[in-house]
């Protein structure tokens, strides 16, 4: 994800604020569709697709991340077909119940929102994203917290996995840790993390840290950024108000006559 954020493309160059606002509008638009809507959501795929395509992002990699997160939505949505059995539409001779429509709708919404969020992060990068969030008014302690968390997540994670491997090598046969070992191991990890935080703090203070992380790149948004946000929001509003898919489908099925 970090490497993706550091790449360069027309989308990467768009101001982070514009992308955040557009993505927020996108999520809101997707969420506001009625519960049985499936086909009208399809035009909205244009947004994540465009981000992925113009941003040169690896679609397969992002798709895998979407799939990993799918089980929860699947778990809650899968009961809809069982509980809502009113037939609502026909495909040939087979009646499709409302539950299947709302289930399909849930999964489409899920794919849309998650892929858009991942694409946003992948084409922005954590630093620009945090700078954008801060300029949009997110309290600075929280922005600093986000940056710190992101910076040290991998460091502490590696440390934890090293300790886990050491513990596993000393306890042959056991599949997971015993509770006593767990408490000690995590406790040690916690103490080490605290010590690390102290060291980080001292070294930051000696470099002049005053509780604020200064993020550069504070340029004003250009016409491109404004056009990006406004254009997409207009598209979302358009797709929300008129069922484009329905329109295309009717136009096509009427075409020959």
């Amino acid at each position, binding site marked *: 994800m970090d490497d993706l954020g550091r790449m360069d493309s027309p989308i990467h160059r768009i101001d982070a604020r514009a992308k955040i606002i557009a993505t927020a509008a996108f999520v809101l638009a997707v*969420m506001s569709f009625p519960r049985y809507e499936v086909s*009208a959501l399809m035009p909205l795929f244009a947004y994540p697709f465009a981000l992925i395509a113009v941003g*040169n992002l690896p679609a397969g990699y992002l798709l895998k991340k979407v799939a990993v997160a799918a089980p929860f939505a699947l778990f809650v949505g899968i009961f809809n077909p069982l509980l809502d059995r009113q037939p609502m539409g026909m495909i040939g001779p087979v009646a499709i119940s409302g539950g299947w429509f709302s289930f399909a709708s*849930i999964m489409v919404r899920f794919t849309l929102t998650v892929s858009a969020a991942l694409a946003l992060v992948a084409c922005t990068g954590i630093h620009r994203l945090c700078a954008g969030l801060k300029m949009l008014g997110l309290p600075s302690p929280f922005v600093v917290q986000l940056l*710190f*968390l992101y910076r040290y997540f991998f460091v502490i994670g590696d440390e934890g996995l090293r300790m886990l491997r050491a513990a596993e090598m000393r306890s042959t046969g056991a599949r997971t840790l015993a509770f006593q070992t767990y408490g000690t191991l995590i406790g040690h990890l916690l103490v080490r993390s605290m010590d690390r935080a102290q060291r980080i703090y001292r070294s930051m203070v000696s470099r002049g840290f005053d509780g604020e992380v200064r993020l550069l790149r504070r340029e004003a948004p250009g016409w491109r950024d404004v056009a990006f946000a406004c254009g997409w929001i207009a598209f979302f509003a358009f797709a929300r108000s008129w069922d484009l898919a329905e329109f*295309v489908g009717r136009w096509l*099925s009427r075409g020959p006559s």
Partner: protein
Amino acid sequence: MHMADALISPAVGGTMWATSAGLIAWCARKVKGVCDDRLVPMMGVMGAFIFASQMINFSIPGTGSSGHLGGGLILTILLGPHAAFLAIASVLTVQALFFADGGLLALGCNVFNLGFFPAFVAYPLIYRPIAGARRAGGRAWTAAIVAAVAGLQLGAFGVVVETKLSGISELPFGTFLMVMQPIHLAIGVVEGLATAAVVEFVARVRPEAIATTPAAALGQRSLRPVLAGLLVAAALAGGGLNWFASSHPDGLEWSISKLTGKEELEGSGDGPRGPAARIQEKTAFLPDYGFRPAESKPAPAESSAGPGAGPWPAVSAGTSVSGIVGGLITLIVAGLIGYLLKRGGRTTT
């Protein structure tokens, strides 16, 4: 426990976003007010620690399953409620952005369910009164377990209520509740045990670490601002829901009719019954309420496409087929645009 965007409505998501954003702003001001820069790296690294600790499991004796630290309670014990709330919110934000774990619009709900309850309810109202200053021994363990269970129960209840209010999932309130609460009872006990074990270890080997964390400075604040915030949130929720009710009648009317239907079903005094019976009752029941599904949009198409404008649920096949065809085609067009953009991008770069 992380809610996805696909399951909540904008009204619920927006309200919870506003609530959580307000709490974050309030906590950020409190943390800034402490004037202890040391807290900044401490919070960041502790958030990272929670991430890391969730990768490590321990085996639960006799069950064959395993558990790990949840995070909300231990962060609050170590950092105090305000700093902990910020740390939890940041963990959830990073999870939502980088791991697709929980949605963007649902972030407000998730921060509230997993952050507010442990930091501002379970810790000050349960953990502190029971444990006092002790961090080892029976009382500390009891406090951790009870507080973790209470925090998770409230969080799980929050998930159920938010899902229900959104009206996207079909799960009946009672059933969903009966699934979520017992599961989170077990998870809560495990989290409480893990929290107590880690806290006790740290208190033993590094007593000054817990004593010197700014928890003491930040912990003793009155709950009045929080309650005031909740009141505002409740007012907002009412206003927001009303607003949406007028502009989008489908989802809300639906859930309201369903909720009122539920009440009457329960009120009829019939004891527990199988889900199948409940489904039957519901299908026979809802038409009485003049309930129409969220099909108001294709209605004009329906009248023009054919004589299918009979009583619900007779939806003309023509409408749904054209919907499916159109959906597929727009999906393909969207994909094609992406593909062309990609090719265009390649040639220019």
